[in-house]
């Protein structure tokens, strides 16, 4: 029996293999646009440069992978998009700079820190990567390579943040990372935070161990596991460094060994009283220094201290701000803001060892470059690694994007703009850390934004003035508890309803001027989880980041404004069906489906197709459980199905149901974006220029443009434009070899934007979506054999355009600019005439699209319509424009014929001139050539080669008018029409002149050439004529 079942299983496996699998490749050319922006960039965790060239840089980010520059920071490209996006440390082999190590899992252990999945290596400067191991360490703080024997590598792993684990400590490899041995392990609660080797005696190794633990509602830095260690035998034996250091327990210790005088060591030691300590004897004895606030601030978050590669007295302390010392750490000064503000919260510093004036600094707001040893800084504006928490959209044309970011406030920017979306088009509208930002659906001049802990503002988008609208504690209520990331949402059914949640749920229908509390405390109100004043450990740290027993997510049913769902960070999911009069807690119900208690309810999605259906995501990572929890209930939360997939990775942040196809769902997790087209039975990881392990925090779908807008925590905003082809793709369609999608009518236009203006001078530039809807088709398999092209026929059946088609598996898109083929322009001359790239736009009507794939042809209709709403360009105007444009088009082709004839005759003369015997004939030929050349010189510019010397002849004269009339959305002016008539006469004259020259010479010259046997008689003529 068992064997029978197995056979059956294999049989079914085979069957499913033969079917077309719908996955990310089905999206084909529907790829993400990277909106960025680079304006505020995002948290940088590691920067390493290649000493040998001083211009190759690797930048590790908190949630955007690794970016490489080969030009000292002028431009970057991402090189780690197939792997975990949270980077803890990078190291470059000092002897072979093509060898790069990357440790995943940032070690700046803030509340929102992401996790890693091990250590990676590249042997070819970042083109290809392999995972070496250490998967379960989750966080890697530093990688150090022995400078003499680069096969020896040390990896400092603080280890898992939310639970006890053996997978932490200091690891050593002696075979370039093939195998690792744990050489320093203190306890399951204390990992390794920092490591250095003495460059002169590389068996001398320093390391700090760190006891640190987070809970969802507090954290603790410090304990008996924290310590400072030294080994002189490459890590075989260790002794604890103590002399002169403060009394234990320690917290986190950051330290640096002076590369040019390694007996000098500096350390920032977190203790009851955190201080800066200096040793001049290799760590044997220490002396405390007076230090500024910045030098000792927030040790768990600022763990970088660096000594100049050449000057042991020059010490850098990037922390809350940037401090430097010229005297070995006795005194510090701060960077100035001349040249611009330097974003606070620093985590990485690279100094070019061959030019120690040149520094690269990584902050919570991107990378900065200094050329004066850190006194002043220039911002690098081309790293789009912002950490959005949420995203919202408005309905303007083009629509705007709104969102808040880690340590970077709240912003709004356009989804498209003339020339592309650039940094400067984004506007900061609120400070602090940013989370939810909501445009007012009823008032285009108003948006709502917040900073951490529920500080909600109503913002005037014109002048950026803010009104504080945070709800306040009422008499008899408990102190309000606001999440770090307080929910602030508009109703999906009634767009006047604005909701916000502390432990209570509030609603306003007048832009936050008046609030109504519509729920009791919806949390568990567990007092043990509300002792945030005691959080931080050795250094008190209570910033609202650990606030707990709060509402975390709110959603109004799109089908009923009285039906509201609220989820909390402590495991409650509650709904009301009567606008808040009564509430039902369904948490016990989903627990039965296997979703743990106390879990954060990270998102709720009431269905827009079925009032009783609701989806929710649950995030349990703060209890050390990284599983992906996605639940669905079809009975108002009474019973739940846990939706799972082998594809899923990362704890879940957001579930989004499509607006049209109820079976199309998107799931965003800490490690990827996933989609299903069958209501959740089969899921696939989205790629298509979406980093495969992107930290996806929020997902929106624009109701008008059908764009999928993704808020990532490390790659800014990503947009997949117009997902409607995927909505329509049924399983049956996916089985077909080719599907040509029906075309929506297209309004005739040259596009959304003009081409004017100047190129962008720097920063991140996001491309625009196609402004004319492309012709779309689906290919089941990539077309490797046979031609793929799209032919377009006008209503009379004439071929107007032929465009090579995409060949990729999945949805292909062919962009047609709605124009005919450009005219043939007079060939030759000294410059390229741009009329050869320009064609009149076709007229409205029913067109036919013929898609040719190999030997098969697929046909669809394409209706082109005039925009009747455009008062500046009526249908009558369009017809006039078309007539003049095609008149000029014809003139170009007529002139091209004249010039072709001239060119052919001149070629013939040149080929035979040296061969001709008869001197009279030769003379005649020279005269003939000269007269042709004179005429040619009147037809087109033949003399001036410099682009700065305008030589204007008839071809160029036609182009001036043609270029204007053809490219504009307006009727031609009276003078453009008049000028066309003049040019028609001019062309006629040239045709006549060409005939005259031929008449004068051609018979005689041709006869002479035939006589000499240099040209054959024309076909049909008898020999000997």
């Amino acid at each position, binding site marked *: 029996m068992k*064997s029978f079942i*197995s*056979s059956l299983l*294999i049989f079914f496996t085979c069957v499913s293999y033969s079917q077309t699998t719908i996955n*990310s*490749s*089905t999206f*084909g050319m529907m790829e993400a646009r990277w909106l960025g922006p680079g304006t505020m960039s995002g948290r940088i965790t590691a920067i390493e440069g290649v000493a040998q060239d001083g211009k190759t840089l690797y930048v590790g980010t908190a949630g955007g992978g690794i970016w490489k520059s*080969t*030009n000292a920071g002028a431009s970057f490209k991402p090189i780690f998009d197939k792997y975990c996006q949270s980077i803890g440390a990078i190291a470059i082999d000092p002897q072979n700079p093509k060898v790069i190590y990357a440790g995943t899992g940032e070690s700046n252990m803030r509340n929102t820190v992401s996790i890693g999945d091990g250590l990676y290596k590249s042997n*070819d400067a970042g*083109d*290809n990567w392999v995972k070496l191991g250490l998967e379960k360490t989750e966080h890697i703080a530093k990688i150090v390579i022995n400078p003499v024997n680069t096969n020896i590598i040390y990896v400092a792993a603080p280890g898992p943040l939310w639970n006890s684990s053996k997978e932490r400590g200091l690891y050593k490899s002696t075979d370039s990372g093939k195998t690792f041995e744990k050489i320093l392990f203190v306890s399951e609660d204390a990992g390794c935070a920092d490591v250095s080797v003495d460059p002169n005696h590389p068996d001398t190794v320093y390391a700090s161990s760190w006891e640190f633990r987070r809970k969802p509602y507090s954290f603790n830095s410090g304990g008996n596991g924290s310590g400072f260690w030294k080994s002189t035998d490459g890590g075989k034996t260790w002794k604890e460094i103590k002399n002169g250091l403060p009394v234990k327990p320690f917290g986190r210790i950051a330290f640096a060994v002076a590369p040019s005088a390694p007996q000098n060591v500096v350390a920032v030691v977190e203790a009851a009283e955190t201080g800066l300590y200096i040793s001049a004897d290799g760590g044997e004895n220490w002396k405390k220094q007076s230090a500024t606030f910045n030098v000792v601030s927030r040790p768990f978050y600022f763990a970088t201290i660096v000594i100049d590669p050449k000057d042991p007295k020059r010490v850098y302390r990037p922390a809350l701000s940037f401090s430097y010392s010229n005297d070995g750490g006795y005194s510090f000064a701060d960077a100035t803001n001349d040249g611009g503000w330097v974003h606070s919260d620093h985590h990485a510093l690279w100094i070019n060892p061959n030019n120690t004036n040149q520094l690269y600094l990584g902050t919570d707001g991107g990378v900065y470059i200094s050329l004066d040893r850190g006194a002043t800084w220039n911002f690098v504006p081309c790293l789009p690694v912002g950490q959005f928490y949420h995203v919202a959209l408005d309905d303007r044309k083009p629509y705007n994007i709104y969102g808040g970011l880690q340590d970077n406030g709240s912003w709004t920017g356009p989804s498209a703009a003339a020339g592309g979306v650039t940094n400067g088009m984004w506007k900061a509208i609120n400070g602090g850390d940013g989370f939810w930002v909501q445009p007012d659906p009823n008032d285009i001049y108003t948006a709502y934004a917040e900073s951490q802990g529920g500080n909600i503002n109503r913002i005037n988008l014109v002048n950026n003035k803010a009104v504080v609208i945070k709800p306040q504690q009422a008499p008899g209520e408990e102190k309000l508890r606001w999440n770090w990331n307080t929910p602030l949402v508009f109703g999906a059914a009634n767009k006047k309803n604005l909701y916000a949640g502390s432990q209570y749920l509030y609603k306003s229908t007048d832009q936050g001027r008046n609030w109504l509390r519509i729920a009791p405390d919806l949390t568990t109100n567990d007092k043990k989880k509300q002792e945030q004043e005691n959080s931080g450990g050795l250094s008190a740290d209570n910033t609202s980041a650990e606030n707990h027993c709060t509402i975390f997510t709110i959603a109004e049913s799109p089908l009923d404004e009285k039906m509201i769902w609220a989820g909390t960070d402590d495991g409650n999911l509650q709904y009301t069906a009567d606008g808040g009069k009564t509430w039902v807690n369904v948490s016990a119900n989903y627990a039965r489906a296997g979703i743990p208690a106390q879990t954060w309810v990270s998102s709720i999605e009431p269905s827009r197709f079925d009032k009783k259906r609701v989806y929710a995501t649950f995030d349990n990572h703060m209890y050390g459980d990284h599983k992906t929890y996605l639940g669905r209930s079809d009975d108002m939360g009474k019973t739940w199905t846990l939706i799972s997939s082998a594809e899923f990775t990362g704890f879940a942040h957001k579930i989004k149901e499509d607006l049209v196809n109820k079976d199309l769902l998107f799931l965003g997790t800490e490690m990827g974006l996933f989609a299903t087209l069958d209501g959740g039975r089969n899921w696939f990881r989205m*790629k298509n220029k979406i980093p495969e392990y992107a930290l996806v925090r929020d997902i929106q779908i624009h109701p008008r443009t059908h764009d999928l807008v993704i808020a990532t925590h490390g790659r800014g905003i990503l947009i997949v434009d117009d997902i409607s082809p995927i909505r329509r793709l049924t399983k049956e369609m996916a089985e077909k070899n080719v599907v040509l999608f029906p075309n929506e009518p297209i309004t005739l236009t040259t596009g959304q934007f003009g081409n004017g203006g100047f190129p962008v001078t720097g920063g991140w530039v996001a491309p625009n979506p196609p402004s004319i809807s492309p012709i779309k088709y689906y290919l089941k398999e*990539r*077309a*490797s*054999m*046979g*031609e*793929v092209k799209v032919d377009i026929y006008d209503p009379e059946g004439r071929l107007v*355009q032929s*465009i*090579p088609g995409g*060949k*990729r*598996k*999945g949805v292909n898109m062919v962009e047609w*600019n709605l*124009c005919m*083929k*450009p005219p043939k*322009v*007079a*060939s*030759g*001359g000294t410059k*390229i*005439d741009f009329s*050869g*790239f*320009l*064609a009149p736009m076709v007229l409205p009507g029913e067109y036919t699209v013929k898609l040719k794939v190999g030997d098969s042809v697929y046909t669809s209709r394409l209706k082109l319509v005039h925009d009747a709403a455009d008062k500046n360009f009526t249908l009558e105007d369009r017809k006039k424009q078309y007539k003049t444009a095609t008149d000029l088009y014809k003139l170009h082709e007529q002139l091209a014929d004249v010039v072709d004839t001239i*060119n052919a005759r001149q070629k013939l003369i040149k080929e035979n001139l040296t061969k001709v015997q008869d001197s009279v004939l030769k003379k005649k030929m020279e005269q003939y050539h000269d007269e042709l050349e004179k005429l040619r010189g009147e037809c087109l510019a033949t003399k001036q*080669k*410099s*682009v700065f010397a305008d030589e204007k002849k008839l071809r160029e004269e036609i182009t001036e008018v043609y270029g204007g009339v053809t490219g504009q959305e307006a009727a031609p002016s009276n003078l453009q029409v008049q000028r066309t008539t003049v040019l028609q006469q001019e062309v006629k004259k040239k045709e006549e002149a060409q005939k005259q020259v031929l008449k004068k010479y051609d018979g005689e010259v041709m006869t002479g050439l035939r006589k000499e046997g240099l040209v054959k008689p024309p076909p049909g003529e008898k020999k000997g004529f």
Partner: protein
Amino acid sequence: MKRILFAFLFIAAATAVFGQTADEIINKHIEAIGGAEAWKKVNSVKMEGTIQVQGAELAVTITVLNGKGARQDLSIMGMTGYQIVTPAEGWNYMPFQGQTTPEAMTAEDLAESQDDLDAQGNLIDYAAKGHTVELLGKDDVEGTECYKLKITKKGGKSETIYVDPKSHLILRSVEIRKANGQEIEVATNYSNYEKLPEGIIVPKSMTLPFGELILSKITINGDVDETAFKK
């Protein structure tokens, strides 16, 4: 019994997939494009086609005479530019942006370009020609999971190719080209593979970053004179 057989087949298939070496993939690829024997008969190749650039057509002719010369001509609206490589010299002439006279290739560029004189393609007898090939694993090319191989050529240039595991045709190549002291990655996608009368199979469509080159005519072993490789 049947079950065991099935299981065995699955394991065998799995091993085959993971056990492919670079040489096995290259050999299958060469079989897929007509076999080494047919390719070794190729002495000259002339390919003519067009690239559509914003609706205008750019005429392209590529000529290779094995070991003697390689030439690319680009022509638009009567203006023609070219690149020539021979064992002794190389020239670039691109008048479209105002260049008035051909420019000689640097000795370094010329040395690197010598591998372009191979009319049979670098993969036929690659080891004997002094190239090395490394299998880098698998990678996605527009939704097709391909073998990724890196070819380091004798002249020093390297190229990464992506081979479709089903058809063993090359779907994409990525070359690092040096220009003005910077390295630029140029990716080309290949399609419309067609068998020629000579028995070799060649792509008639090459998608470059700025447009698609569609070949209309391919002449194998036609008369190509060495004088064609003069500036």
